[in-house]
């Protein structure tokens, strides 16, 4: 039986960027509506069963209150702690159940939490906001269709997905965390509201990908290089003064920053890039998360064995070529 998974994070889209920048407000009711369209798309895509992460708000349960899919849609048996760990645990369980595609509703942070659980299950990250780089920004119906087709096995999985790079965060040579898009060294020990918008506190910035039309911290590198997510290279920037160049970039919705760039270096797979700040924090995918204690040997490493990301456009193109929806 083909199985698709849904991980919808009710906590995403409500951080301080609604105050310090002009981030979109994405309430849970909208996530419910998206989930309805997603389930209908998945079913039409041909998957035979859907499993989902339960959450305190009941995103999927509420979605199901207004639709009647013919396939079973069932919750995972997993403890709810209302933390990021729920997403990580649910992703781990989905792998053991043989889920063939998991859709993550959230932002970069939620996608990262899922990938901490597994990078072996093809992931279709669906954005619930405008401040994201990793997820697909598009209509949930079509994302559901692509996820359903992918999970049903109607197309070769390797043709549906792109394997992207990620970062390993190392403490004393041990991998302690990952980042999907960016890892910013933060010269302060306090997690506080997690978001990063004061760039004078960021002496080092590492990017797995960057584009000139991107938003967030990767937009800084995007003004200097273009690196696709699947390319086996990353970018290491040293920020601050005295600078070789001054870069202006949209680091959050409606928020621009001009930052001095002292050094630019391309990162190759498995290279160790040491972190020079201690104590402090590492912001992974935009959120202060990892503590740097005095005496820790912290480093960043580009890992090419990142998650397999479903390419919605590619899946739908292949579907057309194979006439999956034409009789």
């Amino acid at each position, binding site marked *: 039986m083909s199985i698709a998974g849904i991980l919808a994070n009710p906590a995403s889209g409500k951080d301080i960027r609604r105050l310090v920048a002009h981030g979109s*407000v994405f*309430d*849970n009711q909208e996530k419910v509506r998206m989930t309805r369209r997603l389930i209908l798309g998945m079913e039409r895509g041909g998957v035979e069963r859907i499993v989902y992460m339960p959450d305190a708000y009941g995103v999927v349960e509420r979605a199901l209150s207004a639709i009647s899919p013919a396939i079973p849609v069932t919750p995972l048996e997993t403890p709810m702690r209302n933390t990021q760990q729920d997403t990580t645990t649910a992703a781990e369980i989905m792998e053991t159940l043989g889920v063939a595609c998991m859709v993550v509703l959230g932002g970069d942070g939620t996608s990262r939490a899922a990938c901490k659980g597994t990078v072996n299950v093809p992931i279709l990250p669906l954005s619930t906001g405008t401040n994201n780089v990793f997820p697909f920004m598009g209509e949930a119906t079509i994302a559901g269709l692509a996820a359903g087709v992918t999970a049903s096995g109607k197309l070769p999985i390797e043709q549906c997905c792109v394997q992207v790079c990620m970062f390993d965060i190392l403490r004393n040579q041990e991998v302690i965390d990952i980042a999907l898009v960016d890892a910013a060294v933060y010269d*302060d020990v306090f997690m506080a509201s997690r978001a990063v918008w004061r760039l004078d506190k960021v002496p080092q910035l590492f990017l797995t990908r960057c584009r000139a039309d991107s938003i967030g911290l990767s937009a800084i590198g995007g003004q200097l290089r273009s690196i696709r997510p699947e390319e086996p290279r990353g970018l290491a920037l040293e920020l601050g003064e005295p600078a070789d160049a001054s870069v202006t970039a949209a680091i959050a919705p409606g928020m621009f920053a001009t930052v001095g760039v002292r050094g630019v270096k391309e990162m190759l797979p498995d290279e160790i890039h040491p972190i020079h700040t201690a104590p402090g924090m590492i912001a992974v995918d935009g959120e202060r998360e990892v503590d740097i204690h005095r005496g820790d040997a912290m480093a960043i490493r580009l890992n090419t064995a990142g998650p397999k990301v479903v390419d919605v456009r590619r899946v739908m193109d292949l579907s057309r070529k194979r006439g999956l929806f034409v009789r």
Partner: protein
Amino acid sequence: MTPDKKTLVHMYETMNKIRMFEKKLQDFFAAGEIPGFVHLYLGEEAVATGACSALTDKDKITSTHRGHGHLLAKGGDLKLMMAEIFGRKTGYCLGKGGSMHIADLDLGILGANGIVGGGGPLATGAAFASKYSKADTVTVCFFGDGASNQGTTQESLNLASAWKLPLVFVNENNGYGISCPQCKSMAVTDIADRAAAYDMPGVVVDGNDVLAVFEAVSEAVKRARNGEGPSLIECKTYRWRGHFEGDACTYRCQEELDEWMGKDPIPRFEAKLVESGAVSKKEAAAIQDRIAKEIEEAVTFAKQSPFPDPSELLDNVYA
């Protein structure tokens, strides 16, 4: 935005002051030495401290029935507060108000409040007065998750936004309205979601992280001073004690309490302060000793103060 060392240390002092004050009240209430009701703020210290640290002396706050933390964080006098709660003539309200009616207009404390949702209209009025008189002051309205369902709160959010008032709504979501869990009384899990209905920013922060609260409220205060109107900050937190002292708390489980006590905001903050070098462990201990002594002095002051004379019963009664 990380505050300077002086502010960081002040935050640590304030959280400890609230913690020790409330623990002392817990003991004296159990011993039958405190008249009336007390609603303790234990576990929620980071919210009041973080929010009030973002304010100036001239800014104003409205509080709730669980108000001791707000009042202390805004500079309330330990002795006058303790005396009031002990019902003594030397207290803030001459011993006739008790825990839920303490105010100090000189400090911008517009009052604790026995009415759930009663602070919203007062805060809206204060913010309107500030705007009308071009006073450059901001008002913070503390309110709980239960109060967020009251019409007064929703009307206040609406008017504050319509008139672009310099007002910051700080919601303390501790998950329970008296004994009713939020999921039984609210269709949303995040009260911040409601901000969108009033065209104002709504954010959720970890209410047990004093700097998360401080950062969010600081940005909201900046917005308010710039004439950009109100904001809603929802601080997820938990009260360690019952709704009131004496509440058996049969509506929640020990595991839940244990989980939240594991997120105690004070040791979390202390560890970071020590790591950053803002204080040493020895200095932190000295701060705690000093505050403990101040609390003891406040208790002595209260206990040695007289009760109001029955002949004063109707003095200062206006309605």
